[in-house]
């Protein structure tokens, strides 16, 4: 896989072959199943199946019932009578992160909450998606200069869609969610949240080994956590 994953995804004509080559060359064995090898270079059935899976993931979404701040009030309105997000197949709130696909981050993240939010995100099963709702979740919003405020949820977890506004109107949130569904259905939003550099570095390792390898690098005695929000972008 190249260093520009976004280009690969967006590129118009040669994207398909590029990703295929990347898969076939064995750079990234995780996507390179035996089935793919068996079907050769034109895996018609598999691409159709991929398409179907993308459509499925984009069509049915269980939301995490997750309220943080002001935006959660508008989020409730989005689920409720007038706006009814459920029309788009994404309006089932699940209280348990184990059963949710999408996490809408509706509010300001502060230092005390950031680790907990990370934990909730980690508890969600793959493939999972995150919608950032409102300025606070994007950048800290009006509270950006606060001593306790984290400048955007993206400092903590990967985010698929940002919906700006303070707070965004329910229509805006619906637009954001539908846009994300579109992206997922078109295969533009990667269902596996692994960053490219991780792929290059650990591509030959299985998931468990990867965790083990990373864990062995941590020295428990001097590990520190830095809340250095002043320097962050």
């Amino acid at each position: 896989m190249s260093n520009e994953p976004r280009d690969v995804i967006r590129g118009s004509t040669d994207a398909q072959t590029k990703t295929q080559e990347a898969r076939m060359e064995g750079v990234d064995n995780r996507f390179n199943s035996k089935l793919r090898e068996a079907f050769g270079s034109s895996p018609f059935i598999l691409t159709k199946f991929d398409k179907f899976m993308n459509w499925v993931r984009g069509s049915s979404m269980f939301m995490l019932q997750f309220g943080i701040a002001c935006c959660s009030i508008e989020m409730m309105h989005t689920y409720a009578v007038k706006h009814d997000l459920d029309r788009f197949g994404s309006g089932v709130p699940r209280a348990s992160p184990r059963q949710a696909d999408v996490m809408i981050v509706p509010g300001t993240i502060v230092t005390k909450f950031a680790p907990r939010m990370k934990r909730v995100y980690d508890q969600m099963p793959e493939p999972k998606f995150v919608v950032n709702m409102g300025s606070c979740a994007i950048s800290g919003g009006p509270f950006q200069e606060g001593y306790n405020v984290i400048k955007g949820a993206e400092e903590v977890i990967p985010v698929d869609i940002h919906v700006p506004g303070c707070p965004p109107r329910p229509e805006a949130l619906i637009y954001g969610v539908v846009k994300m569904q579109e992206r997922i259905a078109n295969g533009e939003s990667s269902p596996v949240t692994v960053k490219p550099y991780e792929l290059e570095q650990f591509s030959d390792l299985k998931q468990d080994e990867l965790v083990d390898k990373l864990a062995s690098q941590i020295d428990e005695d001097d590990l520190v956590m830095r809340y250095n929000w002043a320097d962050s972008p």
Partner: protein
Amino acid sequence: MFAPLQSDPVLLPETIARLLFGSEIAIWQEAVAGFLAAFLIANIMLANAGVAGPWAKRKITAAFTDRIAVNRIGPAGLLIIPAAAVQLMAKELIIPDGVDRPAYDLAPILLALSALLGFAVIPMGSIFGINLQMADPETGLAFVFAVASIATLALTMGGYASNNKYSLMGGLRAIAQNIAYEIPLIVTAASVVIFTGTLQTSEIVAQQSEPLVTIAGLTIPSWFAFVNPFAFVLFMVANLAEVGRNPFDIPEAPTEIVAGYMTEYSSIYFVLFYMGEFIHIFLGGAIVATVFLGGPAGPVLPGFIWFIIKIWAVFLFTQWARSAVPRVRIDQLIEIGWKGMLVLSFANLVLTAVIVGVML
């Protein structure tokens, strides 16, 4: 007492066996036919639950709350059914640290299984001349209640094995609730058995086809819901508690204990739990239909269609209760169960016994 309406109908496995192997049927052929029949029935019920879970439930709830719900994914949002099913099953299956492994895996399977097992003896009527009943043992009703209560074990297993306190509370609540309501449920059903004098489900259904009264040319059949409405109401309430719907949805209680016993379950296990719950509601509906609503009886349409209509009616009732009625507290639930329902159901049993003893 009453004579059965028709001579013993052929059961589904036998129909299949004759179709496949002719009239001479060996033991192994019977077994194969049995498997096929079970597969068919299970799939019918799974299909029902599949429609109910991701689509009908949302549509019904939406109708109660002035919303529309899914309408963009396919016609009337119907394609959400395959989408949700595949999407949920394709998700990562998370096995949290420290779960009690065999129990954790068995619980969802057991729940769905126990609900499906119950349908083995339910007379589902016939369609195209094929009787869809799997088996018709003389202890039919006892068997249904026996297998349905295995679900309690599944919920407790899931709650205990999940290594999560919310799950544990959900599991314990499930035990307390099901014990408290199973007894009134069965005792109320026993009052019907006093009428019929048999536990055989086909016999119970057959006895309900007699006319009760005729008012202005309209014949009301002697469904036990009409013969003993009190028992019917008791049974419906106990049934709500049995399937864990409002006002008795405390084992799941989303705002209190997150998702109760299924808090830690994801992916296919979650689907099994979710579907298991719906099949349980349908099994509850099937028991209600069999015992109180004349089973598959009904005019014009084939019996099987009527049976489906009846179990969906009961499903609609549970969804209505879910949308409109608050949840009771755990101690109030137990109180209602042991001090109210139990006493009432025994009173009903004794009264029925006296009436039947004196009049018949």
